[in-house]
C-alpha cells in the first residue's frame, strides 16, 4: 500500500497545506497560486496584501433565541480561535486585525426554540473591516444560526462552528451585500461524535464574494451537509471554495452547490475539495456543483477534487455540470402554452428551489425566493 498516511501528515493535496495564526507565514498572493488563481486580487482592495486601511465599519447585531447567549468579546477571549487556524493570507489578516469577536453559545442539551440571527451590516466599503465569530454548540444541544450580511463593506472574517458530541447545528449564511461590497470569509466547522451540521450559503449581492466553508471531524459519526445557492449578475465575482476533510472513520458529507449566471462578466467559481484520509474508513461522501448559464458573457470555473487515501469507503463521488438553459425544457413548457419568460423562470426556480426549500427558517427562505425573483425580473427586463 503506497498511499498510507497518518493524519498528522499532509494529504497529497497541494491545497490547504498550510495553516498558521501568523500573517508572516503567508506570502502575499500574486494570483498564480492555486488557491488564488480564480480570484480577482485587484478587486480585493488590499485585503490580501496588507495595504487595506482598517477603518471600515461593520456592525454585528444579534437577535438570540432565549436558550442561546450571544456575547461581544475582545481578542483575548479564550474561546475564540480554538478550532480554526487560518489557512490563507486573507484569513490570517482577518485573524490578526479584528478588534471585537462575537461568541454564540448554545448550552449543553439546550434545544433552541427559535433561530439566532446575527445581522452583519456594513456601513462603509471604502475602508476595510475585520471580524471573527465563534459558535459553540455544546453536547446534545440543537440550534439554528442565521448570518445575514448586508450593506456596503470591505470585509474579511473567520467563522468557527464547534459542534459538540451529539449536537446539531444548522447555519444559514446569507450574502446579500450591496453591489460595492467585498467579502472574503472562512467558515470552519468542527464536528464531535455523531454531531450533525447543515450549512446553507446563499450568495446574491456584492462585487467580490469569496466564501471558504470547511469541515473537520473530531470523532466518528459526524454528518455534514453543505448547500449553496448563488445568483451571479454581470460583473459580479462569487466564489465558493469547499473543503471536507475526512480524517476519522464513519462520517458522512454531502455537498450540493447550485448557481445561475446572467450578463457580461458574471463569474462563478466553485472548488470542491474532499479528502478521505487513510484512517477514515467507512466514509460516505458526495459533492455536486451545477451551474445554469442564462446569457452570453458569463464564466464558470467548477473544480471538484476528491482524494481517497483508503480503499474502505462506503461511498465517494462527485459531479460538476454547467450548461445553458435546456432548449428541450423550454420547448416542453412552451408547448403547454407557458410563455418563454415564464418557462425560463420555472426552470431556474426549479433548479435552485430544490435547495432553497431545504432552508428551515421560513422567513429566510421567503427572502431568498423573493431575491431570486428580483434577479429573474432583471434578466427579463432586458
Amino acid at each position, binding site marked *: 500500500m503506497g498511499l498510507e498516511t497518518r493524519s498528522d501528515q499532509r494529504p497529497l493535496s497541494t491545497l490547504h497545506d498550510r495553516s498558521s495564526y501568523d500573517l508572516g507565514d503567508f506570502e502575499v498572493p500574486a494570483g498564480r497560486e492555486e488557491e488564488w488563481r480564480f480570484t480577482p486580487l485587484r478587486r480585493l482592495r488590499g485585503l490580501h496584501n496588507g495595504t487595506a486601511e482598517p477603518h471600515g465599519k461593520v456592525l454585528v447585531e444579534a437577535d438570540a433565541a432565549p436558550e442561546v447567549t450571544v456575547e461581544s468579546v475582545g481578542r483575548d477571549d479564550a474561546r475564540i480561535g480554538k478550532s480554526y487556524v487560518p489557512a490563507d493570507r486573507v484569513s490570517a489578516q482577518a485573524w490578526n486585525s479584528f478588534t471585537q469577536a462575537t461568541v454564540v453559545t448554545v448550552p449543553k442539551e439546550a434545544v433552541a426554540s427559535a433561530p439566532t440571527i446575527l445581522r452583519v451590516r456594513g456601513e462603509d466599503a471604502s475602508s476595510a473591516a475585520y471580524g471573527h465569530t465563534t459558535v459553540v454548540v455544546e453536547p446534545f444541544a440543537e440550534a439554528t444560526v442565521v448570518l445575514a450580511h448586508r450593506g456596503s463593506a470591505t470585509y474579511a472574517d473567520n467563522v468557527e462552528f464547534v459542534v459538540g458530541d451529539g449536537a446539531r447545528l444548522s447555519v444559514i449564511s446569507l450574502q446579500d451585500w450591496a453591489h460595492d461590497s467585498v467579502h472574503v470569509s472562512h467558515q470552519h466547522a468542527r464536528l464531535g461524535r455523531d454531531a450533525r451540521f447543515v450549512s446553507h450559503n446563499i450568495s446574491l449581492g456584492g462585487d467580490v464574494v469569496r466564501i471558504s466553508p470547511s469541515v473537520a471531524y473530531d470523532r466518528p459519526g459526524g454528518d455534514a451537509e453543505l448547500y449553496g445557492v448563488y445568483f451571479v449578475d454581470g460583473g459580479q465575482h462569487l466564489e465558493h471554495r469547499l473543503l471536507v476533510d475526512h480524517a476519522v472513520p464513519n462520517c458522512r458529507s454531502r455537498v450540493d452547490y447550485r448557481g445561475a449566471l446572467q450578463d457580461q462578466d458574471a463569474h462563478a467559481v466553485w472548488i470542491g475539495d474532499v479528502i478521505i484520509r487513510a484512517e477514515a474508513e467507512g466514509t460516505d461522501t458526495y459533492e455536486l456543483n451545477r451551474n445554469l448559464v442564462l446569457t452570453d458573457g458569463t464564466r464558470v470555473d467548477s473544480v471538484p477534487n476528491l482524494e481517497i487515501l483508503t480503499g474502505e469507503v462506503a461511498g465517494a463521488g462527485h459531479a460538476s455540470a454547467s450548461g445553458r438553459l435546456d432548449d428541450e425544457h423550454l*420547448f416542453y413548457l412552451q408547448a403547454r402554452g407557458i410563455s418563454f419568460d415564464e418557462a425560463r423562470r420555472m426552470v431556474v426556480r426549479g433548479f435552485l428551489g430544490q435547495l432553497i426549500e431545504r432552508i428551515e427558517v421560513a422567513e429566510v427562505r421567503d427572502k431568498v425566493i423573493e431575491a431570486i425573483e428580483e434577479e429573474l425580473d432583471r434578466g427579463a427586463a432586458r
Partner: protein
Amino acid sequence: MATLEIRDLHVSVGDGADATEILRGVDLTVQAGETHAIMGPNGSGKSTLAYAIAGHPKYEVTSGSVTLDGEDVLAMSVDERARAGLFLAMQYPVEVPGVSVSNFLRSAVTAVRGEAPKLREFSKEMKQAMDALAIDPAFAQRSLNEGFSGGEKKRHEILQLEMLRPKVAILDETDSGLDVDALKVVSEGITRFASGDTGVLLITHYTRILRYVKPDFVHVFSAGRLVAEGGPELADELEEEGYEKYTKAGASL
C-alpha cells in the same frame, strides 16, 4: 368546429449545406371530432410532422402552410400555438427537475385558459383526471417526469391533454413503450378526449393501439409524404402486410 389544415408542408433540419429535407409536401386536414392515424416506418418523418406543427426550433418549415381555423400557425411562437388550441403529446417527455407536476399543470392551465383556476377547483379537477388515468395522487408533488417510468410519462402526457382540452391533439407514438394495461388506460383517455368536439392526430408505428382507439382515417407516411389514405381497414392491411409496398412507393418518388 375546429379545423387543422396542412398544405404542401416542406420541412428541413440542419443549416445551409447540411440541411436535409424530411417532409416533402404533406397535405392533411383534421376536423373536430375526427381521429386520424398516421402510420409509417421508422425514419419516415412522422415525428417531424408532429414537432414542426408544434414549432420545435430544430425543424425549419421551408414551404407550405399550417392553419388552425384559418389562423396561420407557422407565424405563432410555440406557446402561442398551444394557447391557440394545439397540443403535442411527446414521444419522449423531458424531465424538468424542481418543477412539480401540480405547479406545471396549474401554470399550463392558467396560460391556456387565460386565467388562473381557483386553487380548490383546480386541485379537484387534477385529482379526478389523475384518478381516471390511474395515476397515484402523490405524483402531483413530484418533479415533472423525473424518475417516471416510460408508462408514467405517457399517462402524464394524456393527463395534460385532458386538462388543457385542446382543439387538435397530436399524439406522437404515445403507445410506444407501454405494457398492455398502460396501453388500455392511455387509450381510454384518448378515446374520452376524441369523442368530444376535438380532432386527434395519432402518430404510431404499430397497429396495436388501433384496437383500442378507433380511427376514422388511416394515412400511410413514407419518405416524408402521405402515400396512402383509407379507413380503419387500411390499418388491418398494414398489420398483415407491413409497410413494404409503401416504402418502395415512397422511395420511387
